[in-house]
Structures are given as structure tokens and as C-alpha cells.
């Protein structure tokens, strides 16, 4: 018994430096872990098939990850406040179709205006979700499950069997993916900008930090005077706008648009965020992690065919990865908690 107490007793310092390092390390370990997995995957694939790192292939990979990354960033912000938005796939579809429709019906409109309109469609969808969750205090899972159907239905109803083809859209718009800086395609740069901006905002601004506070403990957030409803509303709007942006980029990249665009995307997006270390019950995680998660999922999708793995395995691998990721998170939290407990001054 004395042995036990001897390890507990001596610290006079409250939650010592060990704890600081632990706290910070968890996050870094988490993100480095994904990065490592990503690097490993790329390395193995490249060894098997050197073509994987050809400039064309890298460009394709980045382009492929663009949409998921942007969506994962928005979704992370929502999840950090202890909510979830399942309607992103439908929102993306709606905004992509809106973008195409505008090109068809008002060919004179300049491209930036059309793109902005597409983003705005997403913003409106996000605002609807946000208002229902924040003002009507309805669980986000229920609301966005409902709007998942509703937005999709509106898309179908609007499209009414029409399809918008690449020929309906201006070449400069469709050529967005071909514009590249240092061999990085423009849409990937947009995604990068989104990630950095969101990460910067969440890390360095009061209202950004308050999102974490709201997700960490909504009651306590109210007590310290944080306008909780507004902080819940805002990420939904941002997420909607980002889904809108993703819709515009989708239109530019794929050219062919109908009402089914983005179907079933929501779970992939949530998966990317979760794999990236964003806790499903809010309060922790970063958009950098989520972006890495999106990269990882996309890379798996691209690497499996190259590794000559039956593509049918892809989904199973992704599922396994999600479970491993949340299991790992749990393990890290438990270990950290144990270490922090050991470092306490009292309670020993």
C-alpha cells in the first residue's frame, strides 16, 4: 500500500508540466498519426506502382480530396459544437444544380456571381438547419435527417429530370481544375485556404474558441455568458456555405449535373471528421485533423485500385478505419486521464 501512495503523494504542484505536455501531445499525436498513416499509404502504393506519384496522379488525388476536405472542415465546426449536419450531401447537390441552372438560364452572368449564388444556396440551407437547431432547440441529428430528405426532394423537384451538361457551362468555369499553381490545382488551393482560414479562426478568435466551449459543456457555456444559440447557429451557416462552395466546385469539376449529385456523401464527411480526430460529442478536434482525415479517405480510394486490391474492399477498409480512429481517440483520452490523475496533488 505504501508503494502506491508514495507515487501519489509528493507533488505539491497542481497538474504539473507533465499534464501540459500530455494535453497538447494528445492532439499532436492524433494528427501526426493520420499524417503517418497517409504517408505510409502513399509510400507503399508508390513502391508498388511508381505511377502513383506522377504529377497527373497527384493532381487527381488533390482534386479528388478537395470536395471532401471542404465539407469535412464545415462539418467539423458543426460537430465541435456538439451537433451534426447530415444534410450536407443534399445541400451540395442543390447548390451544384443551382449553379448549373444559372449558367443555363442567365448565360450573361459573370462566373464569380454565379459561383457566389451557388454558395448562397448552401448558406440558406445551412441557415435553415441552424435556425431549427438553435432556435427551435431540436436535436441536430433529427433536423438534418429531415432536411436531408427535404433538400434532396427540392433538388429533384427543381431538376425535374433535367441534366446540365458540360456544354451548358462556360469553358473558363469548367477549366478551373486545369488552372494550377506549382502543379497544385486551383480547387485544391481553395480547399487549402478554407482549411487554414477555419483553423486559424477556431484557434485564434474568441468566437472560435467559444465554439469549443459550447461543445465541451453547453450548460457551463451559458453560465459564462456565451451566446450559445448564436454559436450553435453560426457553424451551421458556415457549413452550409462550404457545402455550397463544394457544390460550385463540383459543378466545375464534373460538368454533368443532375438532382442526384452528392447523394450519400454525408456519412463519408462525418467519417472524415471522425477519422481526423474530431470527437463526435463535441468540444475537441481540429479542422486540420479533419482535412487530413478527408485526405486519407480519398487516398485510400485512389490507392486500392493501384495496389490491385479488389475495390470492393474499399468500403470495408474505410469502416474499419473509422472504428480504429475512434478507438484510438478513446485510448488516448483514457491514458491521458490516468496520467493526469497520477499527477494530481490531492485525491491521492
Amino acid at each position: 500500500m505504501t508503494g502506491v501512495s508514495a507515487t501519489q503523494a509528493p507533488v505539491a504542484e497542481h497538474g504539473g508540466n507533465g499534464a501540459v505536455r500530455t494535453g497538447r501531445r494528445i492532439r499532436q499525436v492524433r494528427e501526426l498519426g493520420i499524417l503517418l498513416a497517409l504517408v505510409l499509404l502513399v509510400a507503399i502504393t508508390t513502391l508498388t506502382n511508381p505511377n502513383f506519384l506522377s504529377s497527373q496522379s497527384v493532381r487527381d488525388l488533390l482534386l479528388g480530396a478537395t470536395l471532401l476536405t471542404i465539407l469535412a472542415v464545415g462539418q467539423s465546426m458543426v460537430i465541435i459544437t456538439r451537433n451534426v449536419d447530415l444534410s450536407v450531401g443534399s445541400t451540395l447537390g442543390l447548390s451544384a444544380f443551382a449553379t448549373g441552372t444559372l449558367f443555363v438560364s442567365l448565360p450573361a452572368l459573370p462566373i464569380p456571381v454565379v459561383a457566389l449564388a451557388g454558395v448562397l444556396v448552401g448558406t440558406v440551407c445551412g441557415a435553415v438547419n441552424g435556425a431549427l437547431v438553435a432556435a427551435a432547440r431540436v436535436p441536430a441529428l433529427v433536423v438534418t435527417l429531415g432536411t436531408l430528405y427535404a433538400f434532396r426532394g427540392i433538388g429533384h423537384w427543381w431538376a425535374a429530370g433535367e441534366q446540365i451538361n458540360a456544354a451548358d457551362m462556360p469553358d473558363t468555369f469548367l477549366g478551373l481544375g486545369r488552372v494550377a499553381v506549382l502543379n497544385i490545382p486551383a480547387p485544391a488551393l481553395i480547399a487549402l485556404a478554407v482549411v487554414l482560414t477555419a483553423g486559424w479562426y477556431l484557434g485564434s478568435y474568441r468566437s472560435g474558441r467559444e465554439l469549443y466551449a459550447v461543445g465541451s459543456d453547453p450548460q457551463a457555456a451559458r453560465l459564462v455568458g456565451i451566446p450559445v444559440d448564436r454559436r450553435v447557429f453560426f457553424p451551421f451557416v458556415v457549413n452550409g456555405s462550404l457545402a455550397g462552395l463544394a457544390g460550385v466546385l463540383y459543378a466545375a469539376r464534373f460538368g454533368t449535373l443532375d438532382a442526384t449529385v452528392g447523394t450519400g456523401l454525408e456519412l463519408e464527411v462525418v467519417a472524415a471528421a471522425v477519422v481526423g480526430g474530431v470527437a463526435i460529442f463535441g468540444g475537441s478536434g481540429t479542422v486540420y485533423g479533419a482535412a487530413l482525415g478527408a485526405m486519407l479517405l480519398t487516398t485510400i480510394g485512389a490507392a486500392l485500385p493501384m495496389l490491385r486490391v479488389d475495390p470492393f474492399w474499399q468500403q470495408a477498409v474505410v469502416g474499419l478505419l473509422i472504428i480504429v480512429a475512434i478507438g484510438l481517440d478513446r485510448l488516448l483520452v483514457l491514458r491521458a486521464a490516468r496520467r493526469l490523475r497520477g499527477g494530481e496533488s490531492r485525491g491521492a
Partner: protein
Amino acid sequence: MLRTRTHYGLTAATLAGLMLVTAACGGTTRGDADDSGGAEAAGEADPNAEIPEGLAISYLPKQLNNPYFTYANTGGEEAAEELKGEYKEVGPSEANASSQVSYINTLSQQGSDVIVIAANDPDAVCSSLQQAQQAGSVIVTYDSDTGKDCRDVFINQATAEDIATTQVEMIAEQIGGEGEIAFLSATPNATNQNAWLELMEEELAKDEYADIEVVDTVYGNDDDQKSFNEMQGLLQTHPDLKGVVSPTTVGLAAAARYLSSSDYKGDVTLTGLGTPNQMKEYVEDGTVEEFALWDPKNMAYLAGYAGASLSAGRITGAEGETFEAGRLGEYEVGADGEIVLGPPTVFNEDNIDDYDF
């Protein structure tokens, strides 16, 4: 059709222990004889029977908002108008078999006289089609057939042989008769796709194509993004690829879009089945030289006439019967109730502007 992959080792192994317990008791196994529940069309055809006015002719495409079917069914509407029937188009918003079933049931419940359907899954819709038949509806399949017991006639957009040879001719000519090629198909269990792929392989086995090698077949699930990604994967995995054949409109358009923006443009030939509107841009910018397709509008038009003729009793679906199909002229019912629309059309820079679909 049932050549399933040999993945079952895994399942078998995990469940082996449990099987030993239960397997001993015997039961219904695959070898057992089984009566199939098909109802044969009976009765004599009366070529002079009047087609009644107000026939309810309903079109059930694979998916409601699929532009290919939206266009095709304008032909159906045209036929219904000429026949003074009631045209209707219903369908699920996602292309899966089970949701088509509930629409078949609904149509049958509404007492539709003719159901024209493109089956998502040849088997899953079968029993409900038979029930609809028993309830008095005439079943015409178009684009994608079901089992022949489950429908009266099938409007074949083009014989598989025609489609296969046309595509093989196009690709062989464009790649200069030698090199690696690959197929980008829709779903692996789409009946028509598989038939075409098989025939194309047969055709390519001929001596004149001895220098052409098929290195891969990938599936884009008739999903734009998936097809796009599969095309990208194909080109990366096979650096020496000379050409790609995509016998599906969604796949061809997606592949063309990928190709047009990639470094492979000009080096890799692409052809297959596509719609003029989707492909116009890529024909103009040189990504694609030529491609082929039947006219889906005529296909649906023919289906309307076939259905009406069946409903009126002009034909019964037996081999050798003939009927009049409006502006398309006379058609004959072939073996197994198949009615062939005609040879596919090849589109290229010269004629593509003449079509608008």
C-alpha cells in the same frame, strides 16, 4: 448470369462450425427442382384488332430523373399521343430494384394497361411484374430486359452483335489496329452491358484484331463521379493503354471529361456509346473522334406501339408476329419476344449537330 466470384471462402470458413450443426438436417438446396411461376401469354393474335382509345401506357424508367430516360420517354409520349392513349411516367429517384417494385405495384393497382419498364435488376422486379400481368397489364421491357417469363416483349435497342461489332470497329480503326485497350462499363450485373462485353471480347478474338489486347474491365456504376474516378484509375494503372471503350453514356461522358483535362488527351482513344448532346463538346475539342448509340426516343416510341398492340390483342408476343409501329414502320417479334429497334448510329464531327438529345 450467376458466375459469382469465389469470395465465399471467407464466409464459408467463418461459418463452417455453425454449418456442421445445421447442415445435417437437409432442406431446400440449389439443385432442387422448382416450378417457375411464369404465366405464359395465351390466346391467338388478331392482327386486325382495334387499338382502343384511352389505353393507359405507363413508363417506368430505371430512375426518374435520368436524362437519358427523360429524353427516351419523349418518344413514349409521342407514341401514346398518336395512339390516343394516356401517357404516364413514374419511377424512383434512385436506381435500385426494390423501389421499382413499389412503382410496379402502384401501376398495377391503378390498372395501367401497358407497363413499359427498364429493369434495374432483372430478377428483383420479376415477381411483381408477373403479378401485374395477372392483374391484366401488358409488360414491355425496354433498354434493360428482365427474365423472359416476366414480360411480354422486350424492345432491344440494337442487337448485341451490332453494338459489339460497331464499337470494336470504331476502336480498332482509331488505335490503328493494335495496342492495349480497356472497358469502362456500368454495373457488373447490368444484363446488356455484360452481353456486349462478352460479344466484344469474342469479336476481338478474331484474327483481324489479334494485335489488340483487352487489359482491364472497370465499372463506373453509371455514376458520374465513380466513372470519372475509374477512368482516372485505368489510365494510371495501365501506362501503355491505347484506347478505352465505354458502352454506357454516363461512363463515356465522364471518361471524356477526364480525358479532355488530362495529359493523356490525344494519346488515348476513347469511344463507346454516348448521347450527342453530352459528347458534342468532346467531339469538337478532339478528345473523342466518334461514338455510337441508338436513338432512345425511337426505342420508347416502339415500346409504346408494341405495348398497345399487345394490349389490343394484335400480337401475343409470339415469334414471327408483326405489327405496325407508327412512323417507324413494321416490326417483327423475334425469338423470346424480342423486338429489335435497328442498328446503332455512329456520331462524329460531321453529323453530331443533326441530333439533339
